[in-house]
């Protein structure tokens, strides 16, 4: 069997916590992450006998916003139902969710496929449901294992979005998630920086073979990793003549592998039936109240038009709401240079440090100053990157930093003309006769090596092109 025969089919079930002030069915605060376990609880979200759910309309409105933004069809009525199963983190032994009558059906998301062409991925449905509590496993072999339960998360509103099995690679899946995250962020219904605010289940199969479900992947990177591992596993199994069994597997974040779940855990019959404690919701009128803000695609198109920047820059900049807002505050320093410094340089340095855009959101003025220094040729590009690194490290560690001009001053990075370094250039040429000879002999890269040596010596304070020209001149070329 050749590689081309392996057609990968992926569908995603994405759960995001909606950032409402209160929980889905009670008035407990949903802002629990900084607080002690079991402090954001009441009879309703503890599932105490006799307590009844009262719907937080805001959560449904948030989900309807998403449905509208993703081009879904919104039926007139939605009905909550119970999904019954036993688990220690599930207080009522049922989750209030939606079954046959979800909030929205259909809809689609536009992404780029792996070749960079536009691709439409269809959605099956969208609904809201409550999050269960959280189990924390404790103890050790010597003293015994035990489990703690924290119900602060119990009743947090979740939106579940299900795609059709139309994705064909882990990278596409990642792009779909990024697009989804950006859309939810633009709609101001989701905070992607909150720990555990996104969870993904993925269905994955090789065409012609059984499908496997991977449960509870809790990061964007994890999705790509889990899918990549699973595809390799399935392909290898097929190559060896094995058979894919239809099963549920868990993603092991640390190892980057998936392992089969015990069948006992998956042999659930959820016994769905309509939730008798909540009336059917007539959402047709609610939908009319919803006005959508500018969404990522519209903003991308506006950036291209308004700032005259390239599509790849516009896409990167608008793919994250905070980044788009950051860019708009600094674009006045020069739309093109600001775009490239933000989309190419800043993002790379942030990712390297595992920093979120929000950490620099409050420092836009300083970043603008840095761009102005580069733009006005007060410092070189290379020095600019060095200043950026110093600046980011300080923000990352201390939450604050000196102004870029002060960093330039302190590190002595002010740009000087190549001419002022003629002595250093001559000395380096003298020290590297072999490189000079190689260059003369037409060896590519020899000249770049010499320029590099000079730049290192002068701490990047001059433009490498000027140094380049001077060397050619000294060598009489």
């Amino acid at each position, binding site marked *: 069997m050749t590689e081309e025969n392996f057609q990968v089919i992926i569908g995603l079930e994405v759960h995001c916590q909606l950032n409402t002030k209160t929980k889905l069915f009670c008035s407990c605060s949903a802002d629990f992450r900084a607080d002690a376990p079991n402090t954001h609880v009441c009879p309703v979200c503890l599932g105490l006998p006799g307590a*009844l759910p009262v719907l937080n309309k805001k959560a449904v409105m948030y989900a309807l916003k998403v449905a509208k933004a993703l081009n879904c069809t919104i039926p007139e009525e939605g009905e909550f139902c119970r999904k019954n199963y*036993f688990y220690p983190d599930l*207080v*009522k032994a*049922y989750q209030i969710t939606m079954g046959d009558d979800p909030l929205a059906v259909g809809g689609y998301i536009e992404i780029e496929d792996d070749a960079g062409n536009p691709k439409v991925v269809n959605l099956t449905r969208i609904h809201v449901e409550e999050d269960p509590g959280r189990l924390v496993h404790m103890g050790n072999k010597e003293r015994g294992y035990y489990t703690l339960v924290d119900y602060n998360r119990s009743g947090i509103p979740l939106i579940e979005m299900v795609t059709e099995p139309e994705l064909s690679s882990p990278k596409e899946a990642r792009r779909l998630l990024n697009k989804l995250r950006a859309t939810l962020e633009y709609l101001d219904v989701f905070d992607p920086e909150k720990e555990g605010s996104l969870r993904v289940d993925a269905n994955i199969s090789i065409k012609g073979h059984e499908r496997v479900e991977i449960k509870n992947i809790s990061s964007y990177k994890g999705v790509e990793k889990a899918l990549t591992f699973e595809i390799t596993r399935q392909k290898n199994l097929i190559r060896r003549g094995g058979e894919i069994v239809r099963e549920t597997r868990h993603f092991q974040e640390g190892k980057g592998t998936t392992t089969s779940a015990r069948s006992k855990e998956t042999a659930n*019959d959820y016994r769905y*039936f309509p939730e008798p404690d909540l009336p059917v919701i007539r959402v047709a009128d609610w939908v009319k109240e919803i006005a959508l803000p500018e969404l990522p695609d519209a903003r991308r198109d506006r950036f291209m038009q308004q700032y005259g920047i390239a599509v790849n820059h516009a896409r990167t900049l608008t793919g994250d709401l905070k980044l788009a807002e950051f860019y708009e505050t600094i674009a006045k320093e020069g739309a093109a240079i600001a775009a490239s410094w933000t989309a190419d340089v800043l993002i790379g340095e942030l990712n390297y440090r595992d920093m979120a855009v929000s950490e620099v959101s409050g420092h836009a003025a300083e970043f603008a100053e840095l761009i102005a220094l580069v733009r006005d040729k007060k410092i070189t590009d290379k020095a600019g990157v060095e200043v950026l690194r110093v600046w980011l490290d300080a923000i990352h560690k201390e939450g604050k930093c000196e102004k870029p001009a002060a960093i330039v001053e302190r590190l002595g990075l002010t740009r000087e003309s190549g001419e002022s370094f003629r002595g250093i250039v001559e000395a380096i040429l003298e020290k590297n006769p072999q490189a000079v000879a190689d260059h003369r002999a037409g060896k590519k890269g020899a000249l770049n090596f010499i320029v590099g040596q000079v730049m290192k010596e002068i701490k990047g304070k001059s433009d490498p092109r000027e140094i380049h020209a001077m060397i050619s001149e000294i060598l009489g070329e």
Partner: protein
Amino acid sequence: MEDAYHAFLTQTELPQEAGTEGGILSGIRVAVKDNISTKGIETTCASKILKQYIPPYDATAVAKLKAAGAVIAGKTNMDEFGMGSTTENSAFGPALNPKDITRATGGSSGGSAAAVAGGLVPMALGSDTGGSIRCPAAWCGIVGLKPSYGRVSRFGLIAYANSFEQIGPMAANVSDCAKLFSVIAGGDRKDSTSVDKPYDFAGLKPEIKGKVIGVPKEYFAEGVDPEVGETVKAAISRLESLGAVIKDVSIPSMKYALAAYYVTCTCEASSNLDRFDGVRYGEIAPEMNLPWHDAYTKVRTAGFGPEVRRRIILGTFALSAGYYGKYYVKARYARQKIAKEFAEVLTGCDMLAGPTMPNTAPKLGELMKTPLEMYQADILTVPANIAGIPAISVPCGTVRGLPAGLQLMGRMYDEETILNAALAFEEANR
């Protein structure tokens, strides 16, 4: 207080709350069924699995009682989780019928009925899922009202079958029953299925003249004790003599009522009761050291009585894949049909009348032999729960020395008409 009828599971005699002296129930002792949450007072639903459970909050109905000045006298005996028609399914032993202590009180609010009939309290709260207020009211010879679905908040009522049940008043006479109803009726933001329709006690008056009473022939069909039938017919004639217009009617879909009821209530119950797994409620069992699936099984097998286990298993089966459409969906359709027929018949009548129970109080143990016979005893009370309409049981004489109840069923949210008619009947019989 001396409790010869095992009416109470817990006696409390909570003092009246300060500042409620002017309340309509000021100083009046009220008993509360043990499936209604009372802050700080053990609330067990007469089940071992909830032993030692002390709710941290009051049911809305209880909070309203307290605000009206009532003294909470205690928590009353019942069939475990409301499942039964005799109060013999209590994990703590049956209540005894004050009219004849060798007989059952009826159920599931048997403790509340016994407390009132035995003169221990003037009024009590019960709950009615398929007749649980009206059945013991009829068999113990007191007045009991099942309100329209939604007219009383269910917040704090430990659910058995959410879409049928209501908390309701039980009392020795119609006036006290109406008074207690006026305290608990009205909307509640904590119960999304409640409706804001308060009841004005000042409006209670004996009134029957000119009212059209429909008498469904199904209420006097086979299975109804002929002597009970005759006694209730005599009561209806009495209403006629007071000026009511009697009309023969029929509700053919009543034949689906019991099936639709038992499918739906067991489905809902199986889901409601799944949370009682021994982790958070009940005594810590040694079984909890087992893997949790095994621990849950052991705890639930030991903690629930046989009738509760039977209904959990029935409901779990009826909801399971492949059967949901055959049972739950069909029952939902039947419910809609029955409700529609009742509503249609009630457009031509002000109320319907018939016996509350097809027979009188059985000997203790008599109905426990076959669950099916027990279920069939609910045939005349269940339809009001399915239709959501209000229904009251008032004493209408005795059969072989035991009380019989006249059931009046009204239009949706029109408790006023049946309470006024019941008062007129009671006054004429005095």
